[in-house]
């Protein structure tokens, strides 16, 4: 990690690898899934070696995504629990969108928007997984009735569209809030970034002498930083 002196660790190397594996799975699933959803997008099946290959590989990538996202849930769930700061932040969403963050109530490691993305995916990915199993023709076609499979197909499509829209919000937010992309590529943020976007998180880190991503359980004597 090429972290400059004084910068805080936002995401560890393991977290970043986990995140980008999940992201790769999600993009591949979106491309292959959309190619089987709308005829206008069927050409994208060519990226996977044709329709038969797209149909065959899509569910396996889905399994990889489920496992990978589970890894993210284990790492992130605690800091994504809802608290009263989130309501205050959500009520100030107009100022968030207007980049007037000095008027927005301070939040911890994640704001309500990030928590929304996290929990949306935590809900949608299992829904996609289980409905996906029902419509996985090769292995599971004989286990459920055709009517059940029809419901599963519709649910799978709805959940997929919802997940794609949540993903677009997630990607745009990372582009819009400068410094967030580096937090997930190189892993670090400047103290000013933490102050501006996650002030309570910064205060916890500083108070416990941690460089991130989470405060120390045991406070430590702090050396003066230069």
């Amino acid at each position, binding site marked *: 990690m090429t972290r400059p002196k004084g910068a805080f660790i936002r995401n560890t190397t393991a977290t970043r690898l986990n995140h980008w594996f999940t992201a790769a799975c999600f993009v591949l699933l979106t491309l292959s899934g959309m190619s089987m959803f*709308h005829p206008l997008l069927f050409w994208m099946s060519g990226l996977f070696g*044709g329709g038969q290959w797209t149909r065959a590989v899509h569910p396996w990538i889905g399994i990889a995504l489920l496992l990978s996202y589970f890894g993210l849930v284990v790492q992130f769930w605690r800091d994504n629990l809802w608290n009263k700061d989130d309501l205050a932040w959500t009520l100030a969403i107009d100022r968030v969108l207007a980049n007037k963050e000095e008027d927005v109530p301070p939040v911890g490691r994640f704001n309500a928007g990030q928590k929304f993305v996290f929990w949306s995916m935590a809900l949608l990915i299992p829904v996609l997984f289980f409905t996906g199993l029902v419509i996985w023709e090769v292995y599971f076609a004989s286990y459920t009735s055709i009517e059940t499979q029809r419901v599963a197909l519709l649910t799978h499509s709805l959940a997929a*569209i919802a997940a794609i829209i949540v993903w677009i919000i997630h990607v745009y937010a990372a582009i819009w809030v400068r410094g967030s992309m580096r937090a997930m590529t190189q892993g670090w943020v400047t103290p000013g970034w933490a102050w501006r976007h996650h002030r309570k998180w910064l205060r916890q880190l500083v108070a416990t002498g941690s460089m991130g991503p989470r405060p120390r359980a045991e406070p430590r004597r702090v050396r003066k930083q230069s």
Partner: protein
Amino acid sequence: MSNLQSQDYIRISASTLTPPSIRNHQAEVAKLIDVTRCIGCKACQAACMEWNDLRSDVGYFEGTYDNPLDLGPSTWTLMRFSEYEDGKGDLEWLIRKDGCMHCEDPGCLKACPAPGAIVQYANGIVDFISENCIGCGYCVKGCPFNIPRISKVDHKSYKCTLCSDRVDVGLEPACVKACPTGAIMFGSKADMTHWAGERIEDLKSRGFANAGLYDPPGVSGTHVMYVLHHADKPSIYSGLPDNPRISNFVSAWKGLLKPVALAGVVMAAVSGILHWVIEGPNEVEPGDEMAARRLIDDTAEQKLADPHRSPDELT
């Protein structure tokens, strides 16, 4: 089947293009299966296997005349036998030749995501173009009659073609040719409907008051029709659907959801671009860095002054 009649398509799966319509004088065809004349000899099944080079695996015996027990990727037509006891305690042996109904409004074609894997010819035949099939099984969900079967060998979907290759060169389907009692007829849909009408009159005069033609309007009619002695109760014929129609789940998924979903995705992306243009990026300002620096330095100084203070007092 193979792609023999591409200029005759009137519907193409997963296609936003208008199908070719050069040849528009074709009569709509229909196969008429007169259940009341069927003796259950299975000559139609044998003829279907012969013409289409199909041999399903040898199955097992389960105490019924149905052999094999179900339609399959290598069994495109199947005699289904049911013993029906009417209200008077009389037993009737109802034998129905099951297979693709060649719907005028085909649910399989609506559901199919692979361009040109399912087509409908101008003569009404619904055909699977196997080289385009991706094996997803959506046609199985689209079909109101539970007909298509996916091969575990080549992962493609198969069903009766109505012998589209024979019909194309002016022959009747193989099952029609083989039927020894004339229970299976083939011709234009108008002729078959007319012929069925005469037969139904005859049946009514012989005590089958509910005799009728099965040409279900829920799928805009079919190009395989049945003459039934009990047209008021199609389901007694081994579960022939009373009122088949494309499932609402399939209609929603393939109808409303497709444009709404694409619009939703595009709107989300456009909203992002508009926000970028109107509000621009959220940059960390020099003041933020200074404030953070001050917090870090103040904390460090307090800690140095009194290392035993708890962190809670600092914030």
